[in-house]
């Protein structure tokens, strides 16, 4: 099958690759770039496990063709933070026990980060509504809501240049 050349920035690194026009972005990330932190949990764009940020917007990467991402900046869970230098949302998910099997977690964290960065309100109802596109089968979402609130506190605290109040205080 004929291929097309695309150029994308993923987690701050520039890639040029040949892709088939039918290749979904999620498989490009997973199989061409080896970024398997982004998971696939369905074939109907229902579960949200494959959520990544494209130019700062949260997107289900199974709904995008790789060729459509040509020229875009993409952030996956691997680019959000690493062990030892965690993003506040990653840290909050662990502290609040907001993950069990962890399969939906990368997508859930990316969606949560996007919610906070877009200035969404952080009431329980607002968070539940905001995460509607991401399914979790383990946690019942209870601790995910708590984690997003804690992560948002830290992110917004950092944005304002103040110390992060959530850290350590929510065991």
């Amino acid at each position, binding site marked *: 099958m004929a291929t097309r050349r695309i150029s994308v920035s993923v987690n701050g690194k520039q890639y040029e690759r040949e892709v088939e026009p039918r290749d979904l972005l999620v498989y490009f990330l997973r199989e061409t770039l080896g970024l398997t932190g982004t*998971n696939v949990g369905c074939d109907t764009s*229902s579960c949200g496990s494959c959520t990544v940020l494209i130019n700062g917007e949260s997107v289900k990467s199974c709904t995008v063709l790789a060729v459509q991402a040509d020229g875009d900046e993409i952030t996956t869970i691997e680019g959000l933070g690493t062990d030892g230098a965690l993003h506040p949302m990653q840290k909050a998910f*662990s502290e609040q026990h907001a993950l069990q*099997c962890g399969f939906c977690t990368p997508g859930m964290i990316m969606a949560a980060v996007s919610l906070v960065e877009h200035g969404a309100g952080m009431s329980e109802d607002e968070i539940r509504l905001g995460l509607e596109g991401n399914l979790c089968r383990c946690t019942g979402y*209870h601790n995910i809501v708590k984690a997003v609130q804690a992560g948002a506190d830290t992110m917004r605290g950092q944005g304002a240049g103040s110390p992060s109040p959530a850290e350590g205080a929510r065991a």
Partner: protein
Amino acid sequence: MTSVAEGRQRYVGGGVPRKEDPKLITGQAKFTEDLFLPGMLAMVVVRSPVAHGRITSIDTGAAAAAPGVVAVWTGQDLAGDWAAALPTAWPIPTVHWTKAEPTAEPRTPEHWPLAKDVVRFAGEGVAVVVADTRANALDAAELVDVQYEELPVVTDPEAALAEGATIVHEAFGTNKGFTWLHTVGEDVGPVFESAPVVVKERYLQPRLIPNAIEMRAVLVQPLTSQDEYTIWSSTQIPHFVRLFMAICCGIPESKLRVINPNVGGGFGSKLNIYAEEALTLVAAKRLGVPVKWVEERTEAYLATIHGRGQVQYMELAATEEGKLLGVRARVILDQGAYQQLLTPGIPILGAFIYHGMYTAPAYSFECTGVFTNLPPTDAYRGAGRPEATFAIERAMDTLARRVGKDPAELRRLNMMAPFNEPTPAAGGLNFDSGNYPALLDKAMELLGYDELRREQAERRQRGDVRQLGIGISTYIEMCGLAPSQVLSALNYAGGGWESSVVRCLPTGKIEVVTGTSPHGQSHVTTWAQIVADELGVDYDDVEVLHGDTASSPTGLDTYGSRSISVGGEALYQALQKLRAKAAKLAAHELEVAEDDIEWANGRFQVRGAPDRSRGIGELSFSAWSAHNLPPGFDPVLEGEATWDPVNFTFPAGAHLCAVEVDTETGQLFVRKYVAVDDCGVLINPQVVEGQVHGGVAQGIAEAQYEEAVFDENGILLTGSMVNYRIPAASELPSFTTAHVVTPSSTNQMGVKGIGEAGTIASPPSIINAVLDALGPLGVTHIEKPANPERIWRAIQAAAGQRAASSTVTGGVGSGSSPTQPGDGQAKIEGSAS
């Protein structure tokens, strides 16, 4: 000696950073689909679109010639590759369990990885395509031309038992797989005939689709020079996969290594041996290169087991005050077209607890397993126990209405009194410990029961569009599977033990090997907490190995809330053995008699001389160096234990909720949900709560949202995540959780288990609340899931019934007249209150 059961220690009983998390939250964890091997091929399964049909021809020519295709095989092509069919480990004969009556052989159909001539459910595999890429394999699979002669289809398990029904397996001449009877105490017949009050109800347990968010995947790497194979599978049961792949594929176990890397949830759906595991292994064996199969979600809806699928006839006999005299349950199990690993045994897991936490002098349970042209059912979170709990808790509410008692009061009247030692229960088992009234009291207090009853009365008074309902459910979870002797008596092929090894390494680090196989349950964290406290080492110095039959060759894996009470207990006993051995070395080094050594503050010290002591780290190195060991002391400082429990454990709880029902639209809002559980001693409260949250959410999903719906041709209409309603965050409430602790008398740690509790308790709590809200409108029955349409229809039907019977006096049926099976369905009574 310190003990976990003594409560809060340095790590046990508290929260610690979960060891599983760093890799999962950074995207570094590897699930089976994340593994790529050089030269790896992709396999796709071609599935039957019809629910019952004879394969008249399969043309693989076009598929075989498609780009990238390496092989296309049909069921006939692979017929010679199987040493045995796919296993059923729990075949149930037609048997009377407590009476010495003749038994009939179990009817277990041969279940091959691919159908050879007849397909019996839509989704059954008929061919496989192996290609260089998954995309090419998927494209080629479309080109496999299979012709079917369609046969009549039977989808309803009760219709399948009727005279003249379509037969799923011709060789049996019937769709009945088995009938199994279990009776305890007085003969139920006379008890029900003479009882002042008899409640008879019929409940449907719709099929549920488990939907672990990670779909199944299998990767097999052959090591052709050694005839060895490594199998990665997204499974809960690597040890069973190794055993049954050996049996099915005729490969010695010693040549098979099974790894389940990270597993993205299971809920029972990965407690199975699947055709695709055998097919991937055989494909890799035939081709001599790695082969990977990854399930698609819509495929999972057909190819992975379904849960529940039962029809229940539930009867209670009681005094006029509502004191239970007898419990009689009859269950029809829709097995589907084949028996998977445990299919016939699932209702048997509930057979002993249809009385819940209540006493009853007469008890009877009967189950008939039936074949239909639908995908097989098997274990789904709770497995048999949610069905049992639903039946007793729904029926208790009906009984409360009949005898005019508050449902909480009726339950309290019938509860077993608190106990700490094994105590006989109505279903014939000895419960381990419990304080059931305390559970209900605490839950009522946390819910604000009395205040809500007042609000309910006010809303009723003013005819509020939104009516308030209070739901009560208590539960007993029979878990800690299982005493091997009991399993043997129930005709289960395997045992129920678990094993563990704890090794002290020369650096002072501790290596723990467990036979449990977590997939979200935090065993790595929880086990490390136990080890760190019992050995006086840092939590960070404990490494827990699992999920690889090379490092953990013995074990029986994770399901049935067994891990802490069987696997955790095995670990605890291994630790005691290790400590006993280390004490000998400490005594030798400190030049005192062993009796003079005591364990205090995480160290071995000379009694009365705390400054003379040794820690496990020091002893680890001196054992390894072997420079100065007691005579006959082998230099490996490790402890190993296998624990075969003497009894089940019986977690219990009371789950109460308050719901609001919009009587105009049928919308249901869960306003407050309170879970009070007794899972025995808590090792990690945060992990326990997480299990409760997730379990309750799955149970609410069962009560309110989820149902597998088939058409009359056996085609799944809710065949994807788009139309099978898995609740999102916005569709669930938050939860209030609390605990009552009665240490289990079954094991030394006093632990019981918590994995399935929420799913067992919550469905009847929600449905009882809906019926409580709608009682004044005349609604006394609603099927699961209680979605807005069902609620609205029930309200309309009751209104119609009221209008129709407005000229007839007396709405409620008489107490004791028995009704025929089926009477309870969608029963609408006249104005009862």
